[in-house]
């Protein structure tokens, strides 16, 4: 294939400037490869354009009847309601919420831990009788403090 053969597509698409066009036409007159391709494509297009089949009558009504008669499946229904823009927005919000959730427990944990430490220190300052052996959990401790009228 010689370089001018590369202009084949642009010539066929009628996108060459007059100078290049003339150049290619001179080339086409001598290049069997391009001539053959051009003739083949022209023939194929002519044939395919001639082999039309008439559109069936009453097709629109049949299609519309079937479209409205069919019960869409639940997934089709869900998808059809999800317009791209709101869906993307929802996705972005979900992603943001997810990221926030990743951090939120950590922040809570830090706060809770600090609060818990403060309470433990306060409890340490109280004198709890040795007889109070029933205190085995935090709940027990809170219950005992309430009974004793202690507030921390």
């Amino acid at each position: 294939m010689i370089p001018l053969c590369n202009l084949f597509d642009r010539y066929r698409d009628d996108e060459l400037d007059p100078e290049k066009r003339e150049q290619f036409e001179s080339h086409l007159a001598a290049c069997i490869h391009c001539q053959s391709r051009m003739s083949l494509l022209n023939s194929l297009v002519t044939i395919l354009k001639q082999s039309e089949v008439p559109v069936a009558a009453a097709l629109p009504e049949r299609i519309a009847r079937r479209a409205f008669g069919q019960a869409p499946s639940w997934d089709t229904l869900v998808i059809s309601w999800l317009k791209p823009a709101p869906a993307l927005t929802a996705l972005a919000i979900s992603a943001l919420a997810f990221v926030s959730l990743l951090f939120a427990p950590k922040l809570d944990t830090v706060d809770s831990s600090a609060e818990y430490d403060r309470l433990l220190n306060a409890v340490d300052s109280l004198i709890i009788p040795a007889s109070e052996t029933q205190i085995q959990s935090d709940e027990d401790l809170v219950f005992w403090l309430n009974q004793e009228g202690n507030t921390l």
Partner: protein
Amino acid sequence: MLDSPDATLISDTLAGDEGAFAELVRRYQGAVWGTVHRILGNSYDCEDAVQEVFLRAFTSLRRFDPRYPFGPWILRIAANYCIDQLRRKKSRKMQLWSELREGEQEHLLKDLSHDGGLSAVINAGVQDYEKIARMLLDGLRPKLKAAFVLREVDGREYNEVAMALGTSELTARVRVSRARAELQKRYKRCLAGAGGRELL
């Protein structure tokens, strides 16, 4: 309803108006029918295919953005449908060709590369030439075939081809160019197979 813009027909369809959808189908059935028939060929039931394209459009109608024209959207559904079908039914592609006798194959193939005499011959027996044209076209990969038909046979601009195929304009151009080159290669191969080596 006949004068209603597409956007009105679409919103009426979504509101449950069957007649509005029928009118929308009526407006675009010609374009869809032509494209589907040219890409899939005679061995497929064109009516079923067109029906399926519009039913797909109907189920996705809520996702259609009415700020854009409906034509390229429905054409894209049609092109995708055709490409899916071609991928599924590759075995059909040689059926039409095998229906011709060997002598006929060579004779008809040679005619394809001679522009001058072709139109007269086609008028005498378009079905036989169509078998050959189909045989060559069916040898293309579905995406190349769709691009070729949209550009060369339907005469669409490259931006329309790109929209229908869901690609960039550059990709559409490359596909059409490859299809053209591929058709010539297949043609030469077939001609050699039919005993016509002397031609090319």
